[in-house]
């Protein structure tokens, strides 16, 4: 399991990375943390001609609060977000979800934007981004800078709105709103594995925005009523996601998780806190 041959370019900054993307288009791939891409290369599921390394692009390495958003540049690693003590106040949903992503050793290198660009349907960061109504910022050398709502960015399994000459330069998470309760929970085969079902909730007065990962081909967001109707609407939601059987879990089990875990997460305060 060794990668096929490719040229390696270490981009010193964003401009250099974008130049390479323009020059080589679909033949090129960005390598950020490599925690997904390297496995893909090792198994030769992808054979790019050029690999553009953005790990040293210092102008992509920033984390800042601006315009009511937490803005995360493309070179920021997952561990940096997890280590940010103010994250629980800024984006509490993300603070709850981060420890579920892989393992300490993979978060050490994996980036926040890389997880978004990769678009795995059960990944936690894309789920939080969609649930909070966040934004993905795309840039290319020739085109305009595009700010794409997360819900439009994710188009399917490992498929996004990004064009071959574009890169994800930044993702933006809306800051916490007052009077909203944020909760995250997931079920996986073992701790650190990809989620069978992951749920992210923004609970408001009388309604909840519930994001579901791991079931459909992309993170899916629905607004559900609280109270007596919740149970039925969770069932409808569970059936609407087109759950599939795979080696890890059956479709009925996934639907059951959406219903049960959903209700526990939204209504059973004690359970949510204990987990």
């Amino acid at each position: 399991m060794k990668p096929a041959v490719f040229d390696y370019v270490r981009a010193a900054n964003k401009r250099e990375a974008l130049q390479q993307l323009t020059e080589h288009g679909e033949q090129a791939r960005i390598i950020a943390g490599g925690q997904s891409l390297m496995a893909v290369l090792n198994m030769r599921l992808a054979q790019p001609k050029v690999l553009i390394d953005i790990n040293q692009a210092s102008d992509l390495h920033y984390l800042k609060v601006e315009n009511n958003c937490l803005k995360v540049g493309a070179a920021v690693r997952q561990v940096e977000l997890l280590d940010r003590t103010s994250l629980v106040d800024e984006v509490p949903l993300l603070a709850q979800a981060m420890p579920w992503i892989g393992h300490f050793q993979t978060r050490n290198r994996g980036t926040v934007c890389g997880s978004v660009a990769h678009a795995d349907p059960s990944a936690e960061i894309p789920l939080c981004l969609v649930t909070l109504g966040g934004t993905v910022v795309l840039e290319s050398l020739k085109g305009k800078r595009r700010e794409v709502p997360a819900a439009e960015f994710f188009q399917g399994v490992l498929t996004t709105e990004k064009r071959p000459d574009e890169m994800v330069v930044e993702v933006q998470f809306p800051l916490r709103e007052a009077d909203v309760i944020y909760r995250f929970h997931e079920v996986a085969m073992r701790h650190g594995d990809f989620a069978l079902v992951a749920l992210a909730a923004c609970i408001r007065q009388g309604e909840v925005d519930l994001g579901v990962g791991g079931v459909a081909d992309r993170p899916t967001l629905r607004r559900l009523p609280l109270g007596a109707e919740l149970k039925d609407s969770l069932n409808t939601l569970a059936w609407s996601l087109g759950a599939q059987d795979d080696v890890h879990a059956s479709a009925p089990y996934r639907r059951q998780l959406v219903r049960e875990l959903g209700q526990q997460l939204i209504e059973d305060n004690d359970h949510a806190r204990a987990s």
Partner: protein
Amino acid sequence: MHVRADQRFPIQIELNGRQREGLAEPRMQLCDFLRHELGTTGVHVGCEHGVCGACTVLVDGVASRSCLMLAVQAHERRIDTVESLSRDNIMNDLQQAFSRHHALQCGFCTAGILMSCVEFLERVPSPDETQVRDMLSGHLCRCTGYTGMVRAVLEVAQQRQETLVENNNDV
């Protein structure tokens, strides 16, 4: 920095405290470079897709999968492997605790786990069992069942804290 696919690039790294150089083409994984070019065969290679953790080394002090990194990416960085732990053929406290607690049988997973423990104990000097198990979840061990490892790590953490207190009292 641009390295052509067929070019063997002279890679300089600080390996276990010594300046080393070796040649690698872009597609060479860091784990293979460390084993085959520089001879640190303590780096074990299991799955080559990031799951088993056997290949874990420290990159600038941070525990990372060396099968998910290219050798060219390590150019001008500091790498520490399991070979850095013992001095003058004496195992360090962590290695001794692993031995004492039967935290290894075949030893295939051990080198990677030790390197994770090194960074982990720097970040979390007084961990509880849940934290240790969370850290170990990034590694697969087919032999031991992890219990001995948990005991070993907790014991070393406690010993180091005690030594720290004693040293402070001496001053």
